[in-house]
């Protein structure tokens, strides 16, 4: 189960690099662009990270921790350009982290959603597939955001 921490570290690294690049060029942005960056980045990052954290801990503790962390992440991304887009970032952080916790809980215990019992044999394999898919999703999103700086 230690490879989950590797995925979490990778996602946090990608998010930090993106935040650093955006922070250097924050004088160039308009207000609308800042709001869109806050919505997209905080939503996708909080979704993937809270799904991965949910795999490692119990349900209640992980939900508590990730919602608080993702509100802070959304506020940081929202406060890049003006303070008006903090609300959009915080809202998308809350929605994304709750949805990621739901997905993680369903993958960990498939009988919550009344899925067939045969999933209980392949829980670790499903965790691995979702981890790889989530990391790919984060990388695609961040490359789209990086590409949008040049358009």
């Amino acid at each position, binding site marked *: 189960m230690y490879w989950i921490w590797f995925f979490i570290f990778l996602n946090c690294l990608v998010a930090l690099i993106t935040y650093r690049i955006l922070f250097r060029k924050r004088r160039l942005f308009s207000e609308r662009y800042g709001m869109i960056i806050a919505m997209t980045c905080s939503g*996708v990052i909080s979704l993937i990270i809270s799904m991965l954290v949910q795999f490692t801990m119990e349900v209640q503790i992980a939900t508590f921790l990730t919602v608080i962390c993702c509100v802070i992440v959304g506020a940081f991304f929202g406060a890049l350009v003006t303070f008006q887009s903090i609300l959009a970032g915080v809202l998308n952080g809350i929605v994304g982290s709750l949805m990621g916790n739901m*997905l993680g809980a369903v993958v960990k215990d498939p009988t919550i959603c009344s899925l*067939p019992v045969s999933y209980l044999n392949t829980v670790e394999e499903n965790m691995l597939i979702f981890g790889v898919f989530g990391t790919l*999703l984060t990388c695609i*999103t961040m490359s789209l*955001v990086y590409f949008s700086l040049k*358009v």
Partner: protein
Amino acid sequence: MGTQLLGYLLLGNVLILSLIYIYIFKIRKLIGFQLGMSISSVSGGLIGIITGVILIYQFPLKFVTVTIITTLMSMFVGAIFGALFDYQTLLVGYGNGVMTGIMAPMIGAAAKGSLPFLLFLEGVFLFTLILLIISAKRT
């Protein structure tokens, strides 16, 4: 309920959405970016929910594959609807598509294959598309 029928339903939804894409492609110069953001997020989210629910009704044994296919499809639809207007509307449609596409198969699995829920979703889909056409025509 027949499995074939659900597949045709999904095909019909995709066809309706592509007709609306052609219609909006013709009048895209008249639509401002505010309405463009709404159009891209609405179309990506709705086709994500419909696709996820129908596919998980058909293949309840393949949850992982269905989730991945639904996420890719709703990402793609939101992105091509957003690409009509601007690069920033593309980002909005993409983000909304990711979140809705990941959530949709769980809703379908929790509904346990009930037919009235699917009919309700179809009603919401058609009603929202009619609203979309009206608001695109009146700008």
